[in-house]
């Protein structure tokens, strides 16, 4: 029994040493990485909206000068309007073995339709939002760190000051002028479709145009829609990448 007790005591001491040394060596490893500013570089984020998908890309460089592998390195971004979560991005996790240099892009994309199902006003109304940014990584596959911060974010609507003005109509065509400002931090690229309906909500014509509007740019275009049924009033619907942007009545009041 004495040998068992001695062996158990030895195991307990060794395990306690391991438990105490691990956080110390992890802290030293992180210190090795963060003490030099050149070891981590994060570039300017770029946003894009293409075919109904909203993407964010963050150039990232890291020299893992520590002695443990860094795994599951990712950035999670959540955008809130008050308490309502409207967007969530999670970049693909990166693994950086000890002593290696990784230069990559932390990128994530989210379906615009999914985001708009939570807040439709985002397309046409600029708002003050809150952004939660969280950096997550695991050191030595044992200790995980998560640093999160909350920042205010001014959202610029991509279809600000949207106007769909009825211009003229005859038996074969109806003309509309569509204009808006792209106040979003990304350029708009994708198909813009105008659909016309009569008062019975039957489609009478549509036209589609591929648009490419730079950030802070203005869009103004005349749409001549050929109709197969003459009508002087009805509804007009504007779609971007199959997402309904706006709907309003047109014609004589």
């Amino acid at each position: 029994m004495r040998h068992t007790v001695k062996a158990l005591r030895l195991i307990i001491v060794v395990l306690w040493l391991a438990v105490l040394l691990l956080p110390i060596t992890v802290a030293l490893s992180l210190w090795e990485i963060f003490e030099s500013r050149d070891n981590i570089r994060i570039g300017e984020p770029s946003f894009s909206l293409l075919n109904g998908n909203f993407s964010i890309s963050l150039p990232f460089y890291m020299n893992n000068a520590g002695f443990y592998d860094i795994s599951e390195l990712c950035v999670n971004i959540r955008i809130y309007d008050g308490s309502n979560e409207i967007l969530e991005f999670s970049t693909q996790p990166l693994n950086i073995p000890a002593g290696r240099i990784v230069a990559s892009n932390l990128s994530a994309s989210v379906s615009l339709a999914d985001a708009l199902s939570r807040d439709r006003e985002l397309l046409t109304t600029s708002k003050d939002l809150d952004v939660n940014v969280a950096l997550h990584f695991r050191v030595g596959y044992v200790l995980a760190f998560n640093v999160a911060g909350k920042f205010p974010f001014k959202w610029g609507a991509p279809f600000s000051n949207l106007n769909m003005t009825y211009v003229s109509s005859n038996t074969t065509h109806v003309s509309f002028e569509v204009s808006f400002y792209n106040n979003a931090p990304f350029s708009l690229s994708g198909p813009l479709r105008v659909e016309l309906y009569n008062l019975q909500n039957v489609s009478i014509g549509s036209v589609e145009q591929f648009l490419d509007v730079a950030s802070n740019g203005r869009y103004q275009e005349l749409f001549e829609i050929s109709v197969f049924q003459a009508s002087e009033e009805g509804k007009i619907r504007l779609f971007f990448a199959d997402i309904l942007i706006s709907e309003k009545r047109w014609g004589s009041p």
Partner: protein
Amino acid sequence: MNEVEAEAKPTRRKLVTKIVEATVITAIYGLVWLIIWFLLSHFLGPVFQPFSTLYWILACALLFFTFAIKISEGTVYKYILIILRSFFIIVYIIYSTNFGIFTINFEGFTLTVEFIPLLAMMVAINLLSIANGIIQATEFAAQTPED
């Protein structure tokens, strides 16, 4: 009556010596806990402040166990107290670390450290300590006065 009194005197002296010894050792440990508290408060300041109560709960409980174990030396209660101390540490580390997820709020940022594997290891160490205490208690109880 005189014989009984003569036998009781060394026992009482022994007990007093034990109490003095336990008090001195506990006081030394208490001083160490106090120095650590001063250092943590000085260097970590506002980060450490919310954990001050948890720190003193651990310090006071471990000081109590140090005193009680020292007093009960030579009896089976020593091993029972060692087992109880390990139980307390298991419950304490699980509760105080929120099951291995530790969160600090500092100047608008939240730092979360997840160390579940490390917590599991600490629990395992204390379980080994309990096993060790049980073996020692059994060995002590099995001893004859001649041993």
